[in-house]
């Protein structure tokens, strides 16, 4: 501590260290803020902007009745993937129910890899917000949709083009902030 330069040098070191550390924290903060961004991996669903895959799936409530992708054209619809085996779907369910009750758009259920009895019991217990429910028992059609699991939610426009996808439970912020504006935009364009 006798040399006058020693404290100054250590002070410069301290300042540099502090700047580096703060920069590092800022970077981490940026990372945290963006960690739930959907396009974080730059891998949005390749289907967006493309026609929805063609399918023919039975109704959950009426197994003999097949619904094809063509029958759903005409107006936009929201496709919500769920299963009775999926705890997260129960979290999302009241949000989705509230949204479906606004009758803003057709909300179609996509029951993934489920036993019909379980699925029906689940709807009975928590209520059925869906206009109709498609049943994909073996999950084969889900592969074409690029569905990883449940819950996932798609928006398909009147011409059958996939416009939007959300992985995980939707909440009010996502519905009001992403889904509804996109719907408005679609309708304005028509």
């Amino acid at each position, binding site marked *: 501590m006798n040399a006058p330069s020693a404290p100054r040098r250590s002070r410069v070191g301290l300042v540099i260290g502090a700047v580096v550390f703060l920069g590092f924290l800022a970077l981490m903060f940026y*990372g945290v803020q963006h960690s739930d961004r959907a396009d974080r991996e730059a891998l949005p669903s390749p289907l967006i902007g493309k026609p929805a895959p063609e399918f023919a799936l039975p109704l959950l409530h009426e197994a003999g009745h097949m619904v094809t992708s063509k029958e759903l054209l005409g107006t936009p619809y929201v496709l919500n993937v769920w299963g009775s085996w999926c705890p997260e779907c129960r979290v999302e369910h009241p949000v989705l129910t509230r949204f479906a009750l606004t009758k803003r758009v057709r909300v179609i259920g996509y029951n993934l890899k489920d036993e019909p009895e379980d699925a029906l019991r689940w709807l009975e217990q928590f209520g059925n917000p869906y206009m109709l429910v498609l049943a994909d028992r073996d999950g084969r059609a889900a592969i074409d949709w690029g569905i990883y699991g449940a819950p996932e939610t798609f928006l398909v426009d009147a011409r059958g083009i996939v416009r939007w996808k959300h992985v995980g439970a939707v909440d009010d912020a996502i519905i009001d902030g992403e889904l509804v504006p996109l719907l408005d935009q679609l309708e304005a364009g028509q």
Partner: protein
Amino acid sequence: MLPEIGQVALVLALLVSLLQATLPLAGAQRGRTSWMSVARPAAFAQLLLVLCAFLVLTVSFVMQDFSVRYVAENSNSLLPVIYRYTAVWGSHEGSLLLWALILAGWTGAVAEFSRKLPDEVVARVLGVMGLVSVGFLSFLIFTSNPFARLLPAVAEGRDLNPLLQDPGMIIHPPMLYLGYVGFVVPFAFAVAALIDGRMDARWLRWTRPWTNVAWGFLTLGIAIGSWWAYYELGWGGWWFWDPVENASFMPWLVGAALLHSQAVTEKRGSFRGWTVLLAIAAFSLSLLGTFLVRSGVLTSVHAFAADPARGLFILIFLAIVVGGSLLLYALRAPRFEEGAPFAASSRETLLLANNLLLVSACGMVLLGTLYPLLADALDLGKISVGPPYFGFLFVLLMTPLVLLLPFGPLTRWQREQPSKPLAMLAPWAILALVLGAVAYFTAPQGPLKTAAGVAGSAWALLGTARFVWTRFKGNGRRFTPEMLGMTLAHTGIAVFLVGALLVEAQNTQRELPLAPGQTVEVGKYAFRFEGVEETQGPNYVSDLGHVQVLRDGKPVTLLHPEKRAYASGGQVMTEAGIHSGVFGDVYVALGEPLGAADDPDRANGAWAVRVHIKPFVRWIWLGAALMALGGFVTALDRRFRAKPVQAATTEQRA
């Protein structure tokens, strides 16, 4: 009812850790014995409470209480019993609880085995550990409650991630966390020394075994993770420079530097400030690793759910712990007294080089890991930093380390004539080079890497053997556990080098379309594909392949590579069929059936089969196991347990 007991236990543990973090630290500052004496019982109470919470969660899994949300999300009724235990740490909340339990365990151990240390030191160390506990327990309780209920209960849970339904995954996380969290002990000692403003060699001697044991566990944890990736991911690789792997590797590198620097400080009194800084860095990097893995800031194969609230919480905690300890360091470290002077040619210098190389390697890994995020933040586009960067720089930094390794033990402290260790090692250097040259000309492929592996490994091994011989030759000189540990760990490096470089050079890999009954030859082996049959596991359906391996026309073994489709999520997992041997593995993984997609009989047709022949691959993990063993053996040295001398050796009141 039971989950609520777990919840209450956690809350009580938080309160106890608050007590543990405040009273003893304040007591040590004011010299109040009664306040300081709170530390030890609080540590035990905290351990008991966290253990209780952990047991409750385990019981919920074993009894399959699907009214607990975490249980419902990470297990289902088909899950075999053994995995119900390991599912406890299969996801975010539970693995944090495991973190907290291990932290409480280390705290309890410090409280138990610190009775010979002065009261203030114990109070400060346990107080600092208490602060860390406060952070983690409140993180658990406020953002990641494992006991949250799911009412009404679901009839059936989701499943444990099939990747984790594997014996390797039973022990990987606990080992890794034992290492990660174990660095809290040297960290707490370093912070205690900074608060006190002095660093006593006796306390440092007491810390050394803890660092060694923690580092040993971390080594084992990383090795098991690598081994698991090797046989479970089906790519045949053993290290991928994935962000999550890097997150555990950085504290390992700094921990290795810390081991060596602690030895210098303890024996010679030098590098005090540096040792303290490394101790802070090792634990900070453990925290950073936890943060990177748990926050979802970086994307990796270990895709964990991202939740900004959680990420923010750990980030704030990280900023407080790391920023606070570094600030303390900046204010207090200049007061540490300098150690004995040493010449440019001395063991101190060599260990300094070791430290600089290991720390640079860690900096390199840190930069590579964070660079994609930095590029994203500065809008330079999406960049991924891969094995070419890491592999090149790591080899560049580790080569001098291996070259200098045998000199360390043979060079004396303080001052050494450079000619002496050089003369001792010269014949062995020549022998290593000759062996390398022989390898170069006899290697069937990759001669350069093979030669480097053989020569480097021989050099490290022979140089270490030279040291052992010197010790035994010398009359009346003891061979302490500390030396044995060093010898084992350095031998481990030699063994690891053989594995890592020879498998890289000699690996043979083929992707083959094989019809049932077809035989192909790869290297010295022939593989006869005998088809695939469908089998049923406890919670999955599996396509089980049968591949007969022959060598010189004689059957060696029948391998069963598998593709398992798990009942719950439909996720498909590869299980490689591996015939392992000391000198190499034969590795067969099943790809996709080659028949038309709509052919119902395609499973019985031809399959894409991946065949690897991996010479010496086991040596990678054997080497790591030897390094870990070295850490454990060193910790057994009686010197560390010797009764502290009452008279101070080197101390200075600040």
